[in-house]
């Protein structure tokens, strides 16, 4: 198959605040703004960012649990936003989701077997025997004993519940699984088990993942490529190795610097970002990161930086670190400025 499995183009979601009855302009929350990326078959794309940066909204948009305000989501070249009910129903088979909270994402009244076989039964009729065989098969795939199919979710541990969530997502043999903070509700030891399970499944079945997380150590462990989001926009998208070895965007840098490393002798080179994430209702003009950015120049306050491809294939949205080349005279100047700025920062700290 040619082309990427999933292609997202200029995806945008604004949530209106209130109904706007008798009001001229309704304030909107700009949850996701102009997000584009693609996922190849069998690949893991991680989306990282602080709370409230729009990661989960992207996941919900991909699953079409919410309707996008603008942009397109293409699966194998088909735009799912334009699909009518029946086509959408058929398309659900290609893409499944694993939810964050293993407690509230399982219906407490259904048994494990009923939960994981339900997706298949939405598409075909199963006899009692087929259903049991399917449930046992799915449970084995996620490392659980088939006897568990008669248990209720309340009789299972958090890790077992999340395995059920994964088994449910696997039931339809999807090509892509979206995992929205799939391990963040779990203990660290259980997290590792679930992550390894996901890696195993990817190797065995060639499933692509969109893995949404705020935990950089998790992302480093399983990601092929990483998209860093800030206030609804992607600010940097690079391969996992490149991003962790040499972050370009100052926000990425700060994120990586802020992640705890078990090495007391390590010296922090980059000062952690200060302040809060600005409100997505009234985002700062220009680059959304400029109020917190140590490198910010005048241009950052006026103009939204575009995503600029760099030599190693990554894309970065930063006027200082990745100046757009199509604007003459500006790059060198800005480049000089940035170098001087970084040096001055390092001397100061």
């Amino acid at each position, binding site marked *: 198959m040619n082309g990427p499995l999933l292609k997202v183009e200029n995806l945008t979601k604004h949530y209106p605040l209130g109904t706007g009855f008798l009001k001229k302009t309704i304030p909107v929350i700009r949850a996701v703004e102009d997000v584009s990326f693609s996922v190849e078959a069998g690949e893991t794309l991680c989306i990282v960012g602080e709370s409230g940066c729009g990661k989960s909204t992207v996941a919900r948009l991909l699953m079409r*649990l919410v309707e996008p305000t603008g942009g397109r989501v293409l699966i194998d070249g088909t735009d799912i936003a334009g699909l009518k009910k029946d086509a959408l129903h058929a398309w659900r088979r290609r893409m499944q989701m694993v939810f*964050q909270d293993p407690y*509230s994402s399982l219906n407490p009244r259904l048994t494990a077997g009923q939960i994981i076989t*339900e997706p298949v039964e939405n598409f075909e009729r199963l006899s009692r025997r087929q259903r049991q065989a399917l449930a046992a098969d799915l449970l084995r795939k996620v490392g*659980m004993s088939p006897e568990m199919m008669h*248990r209720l979710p309340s009789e299972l541990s958090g890790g077992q519940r999340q395995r059920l969530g994964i088994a449910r997502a696997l*039931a339809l043999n999807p090509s892509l699984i979206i995992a929205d903070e799939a391990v963040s509700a779990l203990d660290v030891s259980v997290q590792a088990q679930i992550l390894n399970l996901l890696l195993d499944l990817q190797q065995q079945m060639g499933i692509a993942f969109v893995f949404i997380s705020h935990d950089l150590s998790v992302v480093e462990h399983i990601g092929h490529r990483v998209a860093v989001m800030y206030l609804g926009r992607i600010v940097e998208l690079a391969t996992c190795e490149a991003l962790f070895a040499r972050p370009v965007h100052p926000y990425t840098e700060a994120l990586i610097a802020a992640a705890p490393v078990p090495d007391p002798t390590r010296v922090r080179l980059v000062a952690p970002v200060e302040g809060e994430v600005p409100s997505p209702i009234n985002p700062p003009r220009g680059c959304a990161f400029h109020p917190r950015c140590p490198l910010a120049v005048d241009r950052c306050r006026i103009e939204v930086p575009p995503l600029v491809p760099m030599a190693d294939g990554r894309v970065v949205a930063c006027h200082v670190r990745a100046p757009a080349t199509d604007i003459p005279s500006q790059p060198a100047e800005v480049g000089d400025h940035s170098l001087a700025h970084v040096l001055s920062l390092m001397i100061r700290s």
Partner: protein
Amino acid sequence: MTLLSAPVEYVPTGRLRISGLPRLARRHPLVVIGGGLLALLIVLALAAPLYAGDPLNMDPFKRLQPPSAEMWFGSDNLGRDVFARTIFGARISLMVGLLSAAGAALGGVLIGVIAGYNRGFDNIVMRVMDGLMSIPTILLAIALISLTGPGIAILIVAITIPQMPSVSRLVRSAVLSVRERPYVEAALCGGARLPKVLWRHILPSTIPSLMVQSAIVCADAILTEAGLSFLGVGVPPEIPSWGNMISSSRLYLAIAPLTVFAPGICLAVTVLAVNLLGDGLRDLFDPRAKRRRR
């Protein structure tokens, strides 16, 4: 990786089991008492022709008689058997109560579920429901009956309609709270269509509160029927109903007290049984209570 073959311990725990009657009685005595009393009343009412006399047979020579072997509760002002009329009256009361509760539950669920899922429908229909709630039940029922004339079918309809708002509000709020749960979204992601999501994931969670509310509606309907019959707009006067009996015999309370007390006590016991059952069901379905017991 070793993970897929990692041993997963299997600890047998108590599966949900339909508990036996003794256990139910120990844990939820109200359900057993109320349900048992109600069941007894239903059996007595259904089996009335087997042991009670003719409730319509008048005998002018035996008016306002005291209790005797022939007529256990004596006779009324037209010489009719009070015991027979009380037993046959239970049929009317129970039928009106149960059918009204069923009708209100059915209509309430339908309206509540659609209102919980469709904002446009919600805005319009729930305002209508608010309007209905502001009208006193008895007045609304009298207005409806006066449109068609007395009859049992219209009586049930007239009692059901004013009860629907409370049920539909309850169901709507339950639907609103459940529809945002991740497991409902997960079902949608799994390709479930809306009717199935409603039926499998949303409706079951409304059942506990629905059962309790239905019991309240049932008790209320029985009382309303008695009230309407007492006022003379309910069941046609020749048909024995507890309300009718109290209404027509109240003048003879001093001479033949049983003509009023027999239907009155039956009415009280029936409503009590239904309310006990409702209270018991609320405890039975309360998940917090369940956890406390374990």
